[in-house]
């Protein structure tokens, strides 16, 4: 992990951090709304929580954590001036992102086949909304990582200038972080 010492703060572009904070605020409000609504409907939430596939969500949790690790390795590589390594780690992270999308897609397929939608009940409204907004963030995060990866492959970053890699990595970690709260909150906590 050479190159990790000379950390600049904040990593990446300052503007992405403003964006990240705004995103976290939106999710934060959504989580708070979930918590308060659940407190008034504990039985309903507990009943329908059991219909969710916790194993699938666990796989997705591992997929995102692993992808975040890969992204860290990508940043480490570019700090050591290794563009090829950076590109490969980003590709691996993208693979994990894709795994997440596939697993989540299968979960949705299952729910939709049962005719569940936003109007079924309050729990499903929250479940579908929260996971779908997060799903869109995974897609956006992957677009960003892909753009960074393609630039890295062309040698667009170096040990001296790799703000773009850090910017993409920061955003991806945010996507991961939101899931780390969403998973226990919606799937596990009773």
């Amino acid at each position, binding site marked *: 992990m050479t190159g990790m010492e000379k950390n600049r703060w904040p990593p990446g572009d300052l503007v992405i951090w*403003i*964006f990240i904070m*705004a995103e976290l605020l*939106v999710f934060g409000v*959504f989580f708070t*709304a979930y918590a308060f609504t659940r407190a008034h409907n504990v039985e309903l939430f507990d009943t329908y929580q059991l219909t969710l596939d916790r194993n699938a969500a666990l796989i997705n949790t591992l997929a995102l954590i692993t992808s975040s690790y890969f992204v860290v390795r990508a940043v480490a590589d570019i700090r050591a001036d290794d563009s090829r390594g950076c590109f490969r780690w980003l590709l691996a992270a993208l693979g994990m992102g894709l795994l997440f999308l596939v697993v989540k897609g299968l979960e949705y397929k299952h729910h939709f086949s049962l005719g569940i939608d936003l*109007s079924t009940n309050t729990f499903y409204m*929250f479940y579908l*909304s929260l996971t779908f907004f997060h799903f869109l963030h995974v897609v956006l995060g992957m677009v960003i990582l892909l753009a960074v990866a393609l630039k890295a492959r062309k040698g667009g970053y170096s040990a001296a200038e790799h703000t773009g890699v850090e910017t993409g990595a920061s955003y991806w970690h945010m996507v991961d972080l939101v899931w780390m709260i969403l998973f226990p909150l919606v799937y596990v906590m009773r």
Partner: protein
Amino acid sequence: MKYKSQKVAKLYFIAAIGLFVGQILFGLIIGAQYIWGDFLFPEIPFNVARMVHTNLLIVWLLFGFMGAAYYLVPEEAETDLVMPWLANLMFWIFLTAGAATILGYLLVPYAQLAELTKNELLPTMGREFLEQPTITKIGIVIVALSFLANIGLTILKGRKTVINLVLLMGMTGLAVFFLFAFYNPVNVVLDKYYWWWVVHLWVEGVWELILGSILAFILIKTTGVDREVIEKWLYVIIAMVLITGIIGTGHHYYWIGTPAFWQWWGSIFSAMEPIPFFMMTVFAFNMVNKRRRNHPNKAAVLWALGTAVMAFLGAGVWGFLHTLSPVNYYTHGTQITAAHGHMAFYGAYVMIVLAMISYAMPMLRGREAANSTKSQVLEMWGFWLMTISIVFITLFLTGAGILQVYLQRFADNPMPFMVVQEKIQLFYALREIAGFIFLSGLLIYIVSFFVGSKEPEATIEGEVVPT
């Protein structure tokens, strides 16, 4: 002025200011009708005056946006407009159609106007803000398409800057969403649902892109801060606008018969709509503080900063006040909405158009960069009078709204609408006074174009740029 074709902007700006005066006069009429219900009845009934007030606002802002684009696009693209003649032609078509429509509102009963204009062939009339006869709506589409072709081709031909692309995106969205004005289903829920695609997705969506790009342009020009820095801000601001604003449409879907999840989606996302406005405020002040040079056009900088602050207050804070569905349950359709509407439109869209006019007009009228100090001082008087009076109009309407909500909907023994209207008369009277001060500010603003034109331009000699 670097390109000859930028000159067409001048016509648009003059028309915008002229119609602005008309809008304010009709505002004063309806303000008076709130106090004396039969004022000017039956010549100008309330519903007609209100229609003229709101329609004129939209039309003059569109003139302002188009003028701004015709000035800004060539300069950004570093090439002349491809079809300046078309811009001139469309100006006259739009002005004639607009004037004819307003006269139609005033001279014949609305139902007769619908008959005269053959509304039955493609019925689109009779909906708030979209009252225009179908033929006018078709005219608007033609004007919008010609306008888009003109600036689009100019941008394609020349340098493609972020500002130009964001502006083009906003203007294209404006045209596209207007098409929903032609969709007029029998089902009232569907009608309202898509009606908001014009109304909300304009002012809380694509218009904000137009606002952001014009503001960014003025800031680049007046501060000399690197384009790169300004563009990055613009990216984040428009991303936040779209993320919060599009789903934020849901805050209009609480009580119209749409599914209940909109209460959550609408509340949460629209509660975030102040964020991009707050970013704009931080952005504008940051750029001015980091300026590389002083600009002799102090008035333009004042308008730019003013719009950033007032848009945040009017659209952001006053919007947030009644956006959450449990709050809106009580405040829906009260004077709280009117308070928000006044400050938001003034802060976000009136001020950005006036900022652009302030920046561009001196050059369009042959100055190097700015008007004389005398003219600018008067313009800034206009700025403060209009801005302070809109703050008071907003505060009075907010007071009226709070009282109205309480007496009519919240108190143990709720009172009927008209009884409550009597009780909040005082606020309406105060609002009308503030309205007259607004008019005086507007008149002073207009006078500023005609004073000091023989005096030398304001300069920045002897001023120090803070480092």
